[in-house]
Structures are given as C-alpha cells and as structure tokens.
C-alpha cells in the first residue's frame, strides 16, 4: 500500500498536467496556432495590379472581425464566428484589415511607405472603414467616385471594398472581406453610386 500511494499520486498528477496542456492546446485558435508578428518588408515599387495578387490570396480564406491573418488553402479555418468577436481568433481579415494589407500601409499613420505584410502576419492596421472614408492617414485620400479605378476603394462609415473591375452593367467587381457569411472574395457591388459610400485612393502607387 505504501508503495502504491506514490505511484497513484504520480499518475494522477501526470494525467492532470497532460489534461491541462491538452485543454489549452484545444483552445488554440487559428491565429494562435498559425500566425506571426514578423516585421514587414519595405518595397520600393508598388503597382496596382501587383497589389491585387495580395487580395487574391485572401479569397475564400474567410472573414474575421479585427483580423488580418490568413493562409492560402481556400478553406475558412475559422467559420461561423459570432459577430464583432475578435477573441475567437479565426482566419481572415475584416474589410479594413484586408485593405490595409493589400494597400501595403504602415502601422504609423504618418508613414506612406510600401510595406509588404506576409499573409500569416496577424495585423489589422490602425484604420477602420470610417477612417479610410475620411482619408485619415498619410497615404490615404478621399477621391471622386466616378474616377475610381482598379485598387481605389469605396468606403462607408462601416465598410470598405477595393475596386477590381467595372462591369458592363456599371456595377463594380469589388474585392472585399464582407461578412462572416460572405467571406472574402470578389463580388459585384453598387457602392460607386451609393451615397453612403465615398471614394478613397491610396496615394503613392508606382503605376
């Protein structure tokens, strides 16, 4: 009996510790398991069509409010998240986080530089949609909607989407992180003619 008791204590403690670690791991989110906080790299050139590819990688990777981290396997690995919940750590950006990354902006609102953030870099950036709409930040400016071209954007007080291509109907194909049920993709939208939206241009394109 005296030999058995220490072994029971050992096994009980072993199981408890293992269980705690496993439980913590089970609670890991997409962000905690996959994303990083690496420094961005600065790029001398930044072309509109070159930046579109950053958005194309984010297609099908989901939507996460306040988020900015995704991989490239066309699967939303954080689906069905509750509205306005950041702590779930799901995959994908929200509208302004996607725009920040695609537009290669800086965490410093006074810096207009071209910063490439890796897709697994978890960053949202300092701007909400309303900030973009108001032209907040050195690289951002309000712009006439009628003149908006590829990689300009339309922003309302709650949402922003980037112009991909205008269609024959006059509606625009917009690349955007829209909502949990919508995900991140290219959708046809009529933001251009909607007076709740304003035009926004990221300044400093190389071409």
């Amino acid at each position: 009996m005296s030999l058995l008791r220490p072994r029971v204590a050992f096994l009980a403690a072993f199981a408890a510790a293992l269980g705690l670690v496993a439980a913590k791991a089970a609670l890991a989110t997409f962000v905690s398991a996959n994303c990083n906080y690496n420094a961005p790299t600065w790029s001398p050139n930044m072309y509109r069509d070159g930046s579109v590819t950053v958005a194309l990688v984010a297609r099908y990777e989901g939507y996460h409010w306040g988020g900015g981290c995704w991989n490239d396997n066309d699967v939303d690995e954080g689906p069905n998240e509750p509205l306005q919940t950041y702590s779930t750590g799901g995959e994908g950006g929200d509208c302004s986080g996607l725009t920040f990354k695609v537009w290669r902006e800086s965490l410093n609102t006074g810096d207009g530089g071209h910063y490439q953030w890796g897709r697994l870099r978890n960053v949202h950036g300092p701007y909400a949609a309303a900030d973009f709409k108001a032209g907040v930040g050195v690289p951002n400016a309000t712009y006439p909607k009628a003149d908006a071209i590829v990689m300009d954007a339309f922003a309302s007080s709650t949402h922003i989407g980037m112009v991909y291509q205008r269609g024959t109907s006059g509606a625009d194909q917009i690349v955007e992180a829209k909502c949990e049920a919508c995900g991140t993709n290219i959708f046809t939208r009529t933001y251009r003619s909607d007076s709740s939206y304003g035009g926004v241009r990221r300044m400093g394109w190389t071409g």
Partner: protein
Amino acid sequence: VRAIRVDPGRLRLVGWGFGGLAAGAVAGICAVAVASAMAAGRSAATDKDVGRLIDVGHLPPLLRLPAERVTLRFNVFCPAPGDDPFGGAPCDAGGDVFVRTGRSGPFRQLPLRRTDDVAEGRYAVSVPAEVAASPDGFSYYAVLRNEATGTSITVPSGGAAAPQLSLPLEDAVVVDLGSHVFGSTRRADARLVSAIWGTAPGEVGLVRGPSFGPIGPSAFDVASNGDVSVLDQANGRIDRWRGGRVAAVVPVDVTGGIADMAVEADGSIDVLEPTPELRSFDASGQLLSTAPIEDRTWSQLREGAEGPEVQQEPSEQWMPVRRGLVPLAQAAQARGGHPGRTLAGGRELVVFRTGVSEARVAEVAGAHVTRAWRITSATPLGEVQLAEPLGNRVVVVVRPYTETQDEFLVLVLGDRGVERSFSVDSADWAETAPLARFRLVGSSLYQLGSTPSGMHVDRFDLEVNR
C-alpha cells in the same frame, strides 16, 4: 521553539506528485508540439501553388459608336516573377487576342502589348480598322498567360466556342438626360409589402455588423398574378406576400449570404448564391439541384426562355445555368455565353454602361442591332439596375449619383426616345444583391426598398399600352 516534524512518507508522496505534474506537462507540451508540427505541415502542403494564381479584369466594348477606335484592354493579375511574388511588382504576363469579323469565320491572332495604363488595362491590342468597321461587328476571345509559369486564363471562358461580341451602333436614338435634378421623386402607386426587421412571421431578417452595413432581404420577384416573393436569406426562408399579407413562408436551404433570386412561372425558385452557385427549389422549398456557375463572380440572375441565366464575370456574358430540370456543367455554361439577356424569338437585350455618364442599350437579333438607345447624362450614371422589354418599348432604370446623392431614374424608351421618365427614391438603407432592386412584370415596375425600420416592395404603374 517548536520543532517542525515532517513525515518522510508524506514528503515522498508530495515529491511523486510534483514529479507527475512535471512529467505530464512535459509530455503534453511534446505531444502538442508534434501535433502542431504535423498540422503545420498539412497546412503548408494544402496551400495553393502561387504560380497557378491568375485572374483577369476586362471591360468588353459590347456596343460601339461608329467613329470609336477599338482597343481591347486587359489587366492580368498573377504573382510577379522572382523570389518575391507578392512584392508589389506586376507579373510578367502576355497573351493573344483572337478576333474575327461578325460571328463566324476564322480568327486572327493578335499579340497583346504591355502598356503603362493599368487604369484601363495594362495589356492592350488595337482591333484592325477593317475588322472594327464591319457592320456585323466583331467577335473575339483572349488567352492571357503568366509568362513565368505558363499558367493561362481564357476570357470569355467559352473561348472560340462562345467569343465576346462587339457591335456597332449605327442608328442609336440619343437620349440626353442633361443634369439630374435630385429630390423630385415619384410616389409609388401601391405598397405591396411592408415588414419590420425581425425573425417572426411577417418580419424580415436584417444582418449588420461593425465592419459592414445593414444587409436586408437581398432579392425579390413578382409573379404574373402579383404575388411577391421576398428572399429573406437571413432567416433562411422565402416569404410569399399576397394582398399585403404573408400568404406562405417557404423554408429554403440557403447560405445566408447576399443572393439574387428569380421565381419561375410554375412557382419554383432559383437562388444565386455567393458561393457562387445556383440553387433551385420547388415551390415548397425542396432543393432540386445545385449548379456551380462557370465564372468566379456573378452580377445578376434572370429567367430566360429556356431556364435561368446568370451574367458572369470576368466573361461579362449571360450564361445558361440550367435547362429544364438539368443543371448545366460549367463548360456547357461557358459554351452558351452571349452578350445580352435572352428575349423571346432568340433576340437579346444588350446593355453597355460606359465612361462616367453614358449607357447604351440595344436589341440584337443574330449579330445585328435592330434598335438601340444611347443615354447620356451630365450627372454621373452608376449601374443600369434594370433593362427589360415592355411591348415595343424598353424600360431602363439607371442610377444618377453625386458624391452625396443618388436616385433611380426610370426611362420608358420608344423608337423616338424617352416616352416617359420619373425618379424614384433609392430607398437603399439595407444592402441587396447588386442588380436586384427592381423587377418589371406586366406594365408595372416593382422596387425592393428599405429604411431603418423595415423593408418594403412598392409598385409603380408605367401607364403605357403594351
């Protein structure tokens, strides 16, 4: 001072316990690390090959004025060559356009040249003057390549089997709208549906979040008997309204995303999902079929003479998605692509909004324009929300806008120009599918509108003889 006496047996027990905790923690951490590494390996393995990433933006010149020079322009989106495919440089792309006069005969191969004009499309080719001048127009398709990887994309996706068509407007009726006067909108003749936001029967769902605006019922349709069907995707149902009341609630298996909808004559229902796919239901909501669409993006759904047709991008063509009860494979959709909505008798209605403030509309039979209108405006024009034949007329709904205002403008077009026009409040507080705010049934125009308190469907009688 009392001496503290420690039972050696109890001390040994505590030691074993701490040892167990430490060993369990180490074992757990190792197990999680191994599992994470395996998961990361799986994730990396399932990432797409970036070299295969390619997409295109292209605005086809569907309807041209005789004097217009024709340059076909394309943006090709693919990773840049070298070690940093997402570093901000454009990709090393190229391609060819295959063009011919009219709708038949051999294609001529024209290589695309690279330009600095990314606004209209970095890759361009001028259509030879003799081809552009053909009274039969010209048809074309393009094969665009990432020269570094060889990955290619064809637009329109049907290629030689369903090339894009560009037609000359020789005798278009010019409709000059001048400057739009905002604020003089017409009241509806009747309000057929009125519902507050909610989930109960008689209410309609609203979705809104901190980073997207309010999204209400995203589409509706009207039967010939006046019954109104509202796609309440947030509540997973279609509400049928009759006489100002909900006559039936039909549960449907939809994603809840912004979708377009059309109701067929027999009551069956087509829902065009953002996934993107067409889901077809019988009148009771039983799912009959699901058909992925050919292209990456859709802009609208309408019922054609032989089944539902979807305007798809980047092809910018209307494609059949189902024939009878049979969903069409994506390749079959691509082969059926054409520039306009199918009308009775094999005709098409082609819409081309161009520049800042112009829209062109043409009735087409074969490869010939039979009637056309060129709508110009001093106020910017957004999308063409609706273009539908009404007897020997065509009803067009355009959207004049400024930075701070927008309204819909309804035009009834006849052989001599505008026969009737009026403005309609945009009533667009909640978002819908992009081109799903209006439907024309009989000689009445129906509008899906919304306010912060709820949604409504209004009827505007056009007061013209069919």
